[in-house]
């Protein structure tokens, strides 16, 4: 019997019914990003980190010493798996189905996030390109700055609904809108 599997994003039910015209403060959800977790062998953290940074079309998010997330919105998972397996002394696991990728952007983004995270997001303390794990609401996630007024959040799939609802509530006074990217 042929089995047809339909891809449904975990936030599908949360987003349906929202205003689709994006306001200046906007939250985007990416339907199918490729996210790998990468670990370096002890003592090889620097070399693996440098090789990751050099990999084409992969954004690197720092989690811990010798641990990263490799994110791609353009390459497929086979391509990324191939790139990562070519890095000496690194091991990687595909986490794409276990993680949810969101971006929040707009002039009030820091004010919104200040209500959800306890980390100083001033550009002097948290520069463009910086990323780290932290509590976002009550959930452990990875937050990265990808622009002056743009942040990227990666959270475990099963907690994404809770983080999404919290972000929308904190963003309500700034008219934060939400939609899937590309919809």
């Amino acid at each position, binding site marked *: 019997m042929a089995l047809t599997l339909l891809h449904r994003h975990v936030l599908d039910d949360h987003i349906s019914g929202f205003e689709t015209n994006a306001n200046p403060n906007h939250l985007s959800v990416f339907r199918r990003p490729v996210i790998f977790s990468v670990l370096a062998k002890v003592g090889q953290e620097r070399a693996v980190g440098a090789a990751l940074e050099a990999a084409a079309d992969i954004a690197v998010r720092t989690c811990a010493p010798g641990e990263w997330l490799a994110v791609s919105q353009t390459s497929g998972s086979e391509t990324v798996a191939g790139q990562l397996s070519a890095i000496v002394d690194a091991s990687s696991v595909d986490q794409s189905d276990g993680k949810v990728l969101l971006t929040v952007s707009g002039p009030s983004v820091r004010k919104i996030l200040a209500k959800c995270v306890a980390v100083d997001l001033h550009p002097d303390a948290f520069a463009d390109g910086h990323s780290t794990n932290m*509590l976002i609401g009550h959930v452990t996630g990875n937050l990265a700055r990808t622009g002056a007024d743009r942040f990227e959040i990666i959270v475990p799939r099963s907690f994404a609904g809770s983080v999404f609802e919290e972000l929308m509530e904190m963003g309500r006074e700034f008219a934060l809108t939400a939609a899937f990217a590309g919809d």
Partner: protein
Amino acid sequence: MASLISCPHCGTRPKEEFSIRGAVVARPQPGAKEDAWYRYVFIRDNPKGRYQEYWHHAAGCRRFLVVDRDNLTHEVFAVTDATEFAKNAEVAR
């Protein structure tokens, strides 16, 4: 979110991101006498003042840290990665 701990890997973070895992006690050698193991597992001094504890940075780098602090004044003297701490203790021995 009041108490701030400076993780050597992640920077300054609220204590909510950590899980306190108890006093830093040297583990006895595998062949140590039973009372040494009994002391290691069950007996704690619970001092008032300067104290070294394992803190697990559960919501950050997920590394075990050694937080050297005063539990009366809340002053934090040092935060070290537990691996570093063990290495330094090895050198000092």
